[in-house]
């Protein structure tokens, strides 16, 4: 897999920590592989919205990648509850269902961005970089220097 310019935290130069939420083990593995290519670290995983909420509180990740269609509690409700408890939470929705109502609902509940599956690593990297840079979490990587 293509390697990207590592996104590191400005405060301690450590890798960005991710929480990956998807009911598909395969999807989580696939995202974990991309995160590795971004120089990040998977700090936690969850297979449903309820577990995502407890995992978020436990590991306090820099960013969450969240599926929408999941058993027990769907991603949009999980985002709402995470953002209510942690207003600075950064959640990027990653779902195969990309219609406008879904995207709007997620953004209204506090998600920062939306990526449609199948996920293209370049697109995901750019979105994560944008969200983290916007909050000053990472040191900006200049455009055109994202891959190596």
């Amino acid at each position, binding site marked *: *897999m293509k390697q990207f310019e590592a996104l590191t935290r400005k405060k301690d130069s450590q890798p960005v920590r991710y929480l990956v939420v998807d009911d598909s083990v395969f999807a989580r*593995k*696939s995202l974990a592989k991309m995160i590795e290519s971004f120089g990040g670290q998977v700090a936690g995983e969850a297979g449903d919205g309820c577990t995502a909420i407890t995992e978020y509180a436990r590991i306090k990740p820099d960013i969450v990648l969240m599926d929408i269609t999941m058993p027990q509690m769907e991603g949009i409700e999980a985002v709402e509850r995470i953002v209510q408890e942690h207003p600075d939470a950064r959640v990027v929705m990653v779902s*195969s269902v*990309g219609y406008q109502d879904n995207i709007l609902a997620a953004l209204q509940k506090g998600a920062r961005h939306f990526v449609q*599956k199948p996920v*293209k690593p370049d697109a995901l990297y750019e979105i994560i970089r944008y969200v983290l840079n916007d909050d000053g979490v990472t040191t900006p990587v200049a455009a055109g220097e994202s891959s190596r």
Partner: protein
Amino acid sequence: MRMDLIQPFIGALDAVLAEMMKEPSKIADLTMEEEGYRRKGLAAVVMFKGQIEGRIVLDMDPSAATQVAGFLSGAEVDPSEPIVPEVVCELANMVIGNAVTQLNDRGFQFKVLPPAVLTEEQCAATGQDSEATILRFETPSGNVHLNIAMKYHARRASERTPVAVG
């Protein structure tokens, strides 16, 4: 069955296979069936509800599913590994997600349920009371079948259309 509702599923499968297999694929067959579904390889089912109700079954030759699992995990994968049926579920999820996104943009409302591995016992019940369209895609790693059964609720859709008064 309305082909204009089937077309987004064909386009979605074509796009997902191209992205996930990195191999060329082509439609080899399109058939209609009214009997219970007979699984051919590793299969996953996804149900959807709303103005259009039904389900899709994505059925992959084990060799094709193993190819995708191996490609995406960056290592050789044994066909017996549990990750292989997981791949079929996730691909089914992507196909239906992309298709309903297109249909939603045309005004249809949906609720998509999580995918599940389709067992032999579930197969017989899957195709009852519904006509299904079956597409067979050929890829260098094996066949991929997409079985689509859906009902369009015209009345339910028309209930949402504003009626001019006066």
